[in-house]
């Protein structure tokens, strides 16, 4: 996963690009593969949740998100956690610039 976080005038803009095929029921039949998509994505700074999303298979392949939040400064660490439909979790972090 790729994370970019930039602070400007007290607002942090975060862009994330996740790695997941986002295959739902219908697509799995067409492509003859397993259903495989992310169900939840969470962003945390200093242990506090700053953004989260319950997700479904109609997001694009390798989902992209942009979001903004207040209350963090340059150098703080942002942690992105994801969980997929089989319960597999992934996590990555980056410093806010």
């Amino acid at each position, binding site marked *: 996963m790729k994370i970019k976080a930039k602070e400007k005038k007290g*607002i942090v803009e975060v862009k994330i690009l996740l790695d997941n095929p*986002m295959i*739902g*029921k*219908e*697509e799995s039949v*067409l*492509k003859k593969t397993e259903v495989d998509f992310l*169900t*939840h994505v*969470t962003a945390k700074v200093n242990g*506090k*949740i*700053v*953004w*989260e*999303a*319950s*997700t*479904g298979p*109609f*997001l*694009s*392949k390798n*989902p*992209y*998100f*942009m*979001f*903004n*939040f*207040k*209350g963090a400064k340059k150098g703080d660490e942002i942690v992105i*956690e994801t*969980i997929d439909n089989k*319960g597999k*979790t992934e996590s990555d972090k980056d410093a806010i610039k």
Partner: protein
Amino acid sequence: MQRRKFLSLSATAAAVASVLPASLSATDFRTTAPKAWEAPSSKEAIEALFGSAAMIDGQIEIKAPKLAENGGAVPIGIKSNLDLATVALFQDANPRSAVVVFELPENGVADLMTKIKMRKTANVTVVAKGRDGKLYSAVQKVEVSIGGCGG
């Protein structure tokens, strides 16, 4: 024989349920509102998630292309000056309507963007619940020239 089959089936179902780890967050809308994710139309999905209360128009801006060339990744931006707690995105182009439900912290900034799949021209609907408890909505039609979602 049938009874034995049934018993073994329920045993595997229980085993699958128990290996799932606890949700990462306190409010996972996939578990709290499972019906909303199965609903074929936006209207039903919105009712399952937010109920059928009146909604206020004109306070949320959807930034989406009028004509999307690639239905596999249609950029959808959501912007508002309101203090929103929950922002949900629906569309009528795919077999099921709900796409994503965002949750924002208090004093958050409602400025979001994501990319979705649309296999045909349809309306994209955003419904948000403000921290004032009111529901807000916005609708925009997006024309898709080449459909996504596996054709």
